[in-house]
């Protein structure tokens, strides 16, 4: 790299929410490197962006790399792991569970025992799917015991549930919260009860992590995002405004999502890796992963200091 | 030449007329192709129309067929009309026999088409596609198509132009036979003066948007080209068409 030229970091996101709030929080002022955002909806697009080096960092759910490693032809090792998670966050308040299993009130489902034979909407991939699998297992049901309604994303799954086409829904709460608040549905199970970490994470390419200059920039970037999370809870009105104006959310939705999005970084520690390992094992047993994997190599702890200085 | 008073005959609508044209005009791009034409044709009358190329003969036939509308004037014709167009106008996607009985199907239609095709000498081409026909064959199919119907008015636009002398004579006979059987009014456009004299009761010469000459043919049918009256009529018509005896011989 020619002397004097600035390092450039390209960060992918799935919508513009996080970049808008990060920018609004002012934490990017005086950034010592060039930061470029790229919006690519869906984990598949994020991964493509990373593999093709269009992105340095991508945003996805914490299960994406589990699936990625499980599907890989070559086994991942510390040296060749193409991608690693460098930071993960979620709302730590139990009142705002990231993923839930919800039932319609008119379906007369009083407990897990009533789930048998029901129409159950979920979307494949990520922790939404995990929520569905673990909820079903918790109810002691096999896939053949219910009427599964698989859709491509949680917006479609939520649309089916909200329109009363299914009795049960597993996935993000945001997409169905209006139905819940209207009193048409209620939450049956939250992800914490199923021990799903359900973190949103930044994954970086292995060569980005190893690149001195980029790693420095990434550390700086994550540190500033942490500052943004600190700024966030006390600026919910600003966030709501962004959600309304930029994301076109309804005021009701914006209020809900702003409160819901108020997150903090979770340290990528042994405890988290243990929980993630269990997820990988469950997915292997359910047949969704073709091989048994060790998830620890998916986590780079190199940036823990930037994300969780106290830990 | 005494022009019959068109207006007078038109004033008596009960008079036996199959075609009544009153002050009919038709213009294209401001050029009056037909300019206040008056014409009455009796039922069963055979009228031939001569005239230089581009003078409005086809336009007149299109008006009579109801395919074009007059710009001014009024026009009354029989409800059932049949036309041989200047081009064959066969539906390329239909076999020859289907074109003859266009719109009808079944064994009866097929048989009727067969008879008509035999009459025009094309029995062997009944199942052919129109695109494989020679120019004269296509024209004869179009003739067969017009003749299988029983029209009150038969409109023929140079129907024999692509035929050799012998075939042409046969087709003349065919048209005359049909005419004698059903007595439709016939309007035949032709460039062949002899043909006009052989077939028609009355010959019109169209030029410059008007009916220049109207000649009744006083010969009895069948007619003989050797008849001196025939020769006189021919000379008169050719002169009318701008072909003097000297020009005719080059």
């Amino acid at each position, binding site marked *: 790299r020619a002397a004097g030229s600035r390092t450039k970091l390209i960060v992918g996101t799935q919508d513009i929410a996080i970049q808008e709030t990060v920018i609004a929080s002012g934490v990017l002022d005086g950034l010592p490197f060039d930061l470029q955002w790229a919006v690519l909806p869906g984990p598949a697009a994020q991964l493509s962006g990373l593999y093709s080096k269009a992105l340095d960092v991508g945003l996805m759910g914490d299960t994406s790399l589990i699936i990625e490693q499980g599907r890989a032809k070559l086994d991942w090792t510390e040296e060749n792991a193409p991608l690693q998670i460098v930071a993960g966050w979620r709302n730590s308040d139990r009142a705002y569970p990231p993923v839930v299993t919800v039932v319609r009130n008119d379906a007369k489902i009083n407990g897990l025992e009533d789930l048998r034979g029901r129409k159950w909407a979920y979307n494949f991939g990520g922790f939404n799917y995990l929520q569905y699998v673990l909820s079903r297992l918790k109810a002691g049901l096999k896939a053949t015991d219910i009427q599964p309604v698989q859709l491509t994303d949680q917006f479609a799954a939520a649309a089916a549930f909200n329109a009363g086409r299914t009795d049960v829904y597993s996935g993000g709460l945001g997409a169905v919260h209006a139905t819940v608040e209207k009193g048409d549905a209620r939450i049956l199970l939250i992800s914490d009860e199923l021990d799903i970490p359900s973190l949103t994470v930044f994954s970086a390419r292995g060569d980005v992590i190893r690149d001195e200059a980029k790693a420095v920039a990434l550390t700086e970037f994550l540190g500033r995002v942490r500052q943004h999370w600190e700024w966030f809870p006390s600026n919910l009105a600003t966030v709501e405004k962004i959600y309304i*104006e930029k994301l076109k959310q309804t005021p009701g939705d914006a209020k809900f999502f702003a409160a819901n999005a108020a997150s903090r970084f979770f340290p990528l520690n042994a405890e988290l890796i243990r929980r993630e390992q269990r997820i990988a094992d469950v997915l292997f047993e359910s047949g969704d992963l073709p091989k048994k994997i060790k998830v620890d190599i998916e986590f780079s702890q190199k940036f823990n200091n930037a994300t969780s200085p106290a830990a | 030449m005494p022009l019959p008073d068109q207006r007078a005959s038109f004033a008596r609508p009960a008079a036996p007329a199959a075609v009544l044209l009153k002050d009919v005009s038709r213009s294209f791009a401001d050029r009056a192709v037909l300019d206040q034409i008056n014409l009455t044709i009796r039922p069963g009358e055979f009228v031939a129309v001569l005239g230089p190329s581009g003078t409005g003969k086809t336009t007149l036939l299109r008006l009579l067929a109801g395919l074009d509308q007059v710009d001014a004037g009024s026009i009354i014709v029989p409800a059932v009309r049949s036309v041989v167009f200047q081009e064959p106008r066969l539906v390329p996607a239909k076999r020859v026999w289907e074109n003859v009985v266009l719109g009808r199907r079944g064994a009866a239609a097929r048989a009727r088409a067969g008879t008509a095709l035999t009459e025009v000498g094309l029995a062997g081409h009944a199942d052919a596609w129109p695109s494989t026909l020679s120019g004269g064959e296509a024209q004869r199919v179009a003739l067969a198509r017009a003749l299988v119907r029983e029209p009150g008015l038969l409109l023929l636009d140079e129907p024999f132009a692509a035929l050799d002398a012998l075939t042409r004579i046969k087709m003349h006979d065919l048209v005359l036979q049909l005419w004698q059987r059903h007595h439709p009014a016939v309007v035949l456009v032709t460039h062949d003066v002899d043909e006009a004299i052989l077939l028609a009761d009355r010959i019109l010469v169209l030029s410059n948007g008007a009916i220049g000459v109207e000649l009744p043919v006083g010969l009895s049918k069948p007619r003989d080209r050797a008849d001196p009256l025939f020769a006189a009529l021919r000379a008169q018509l050719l002169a009318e068409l701008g072909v003097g005896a000297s020009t005719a011989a080059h």
Partner: protein
Amino acid sequence: MTDIVSLAQYALSPKQEAPAAPQTKGLVLVDLTPRARTSHLSAAWQVWRGRLLRVGSPLAILLVWQIASGFGFVAPEVLPSPLDIIAAFRELIAMGDLQSALPVSLYRSLSGLAIGGTIGLTIGLFAGLWRVGEEIFDAPLQMLRTIPFIALVPLFITWFGIDESAKIVVIVAATIFPMYLNTYAGVRGVDPKLTEAAKVFGLDARQTTLHVILPTALPSILLGLRYAAGVALLALVVAEQINARSGIGYILNNANMNQRSDIIVAGIIVYAVLGIATDLVMRVIERIALPWRPKLALA
């Protein structure tokens, strides 16, 4: 007078021929004289009926819709009422989204259409004119056309990156085929009688193409352009999944993720209006490019 539209009047509604009284032994006569004044009025009425119906049928849909939602026959989640949609439009315009989306999206569509259309036209001509061209290109293009681009956004990112060019590549890929197929069909549909004439008069390949085949195949080629233009708009929804911050495809995708069915329907309406605008533009192009054709009414 051989106005092609008049087919309906000519061939299919004999009622204009008022039967006159039968005058001689069973010979039924009809009066073909157009009633001049009536026909003047009726011509004007025809034009106005046309305009009214063209505008009216979408309006009728709108009306039924508003009534249905106004009387609560349809829940707003199922179908937002027209008033909701107007509010959504207000919002999109007030925030400047729509104003910034249209030029961006149109630019993407048009540049993709220009490139894809040119490629499709060229290959279509080549395959239409030379059998060997068909043999080489037809199979790959028949394959290309069934490629489901919607499912390929990740692969597209891998291949073409996340820049503006990647978005345009999506549109290019989507527009090649309609242009190809219609050009090919148009060229093959040229009456061989005309190309025979061109051959006899010593025209070479270039001249035959330029002076006989292209002009005669133009109606079909323009039909291809019509398709391709529509496809170029549709492909925006896929293209603008690739790192877009504006554009009508982006607005729709974003509304989808944020469950704003009113904005989705507003987006559909924007698309519909663009569809009609495309149609009008194509009608004008056809009018200009095909002066020899019996005119289709613009009204």
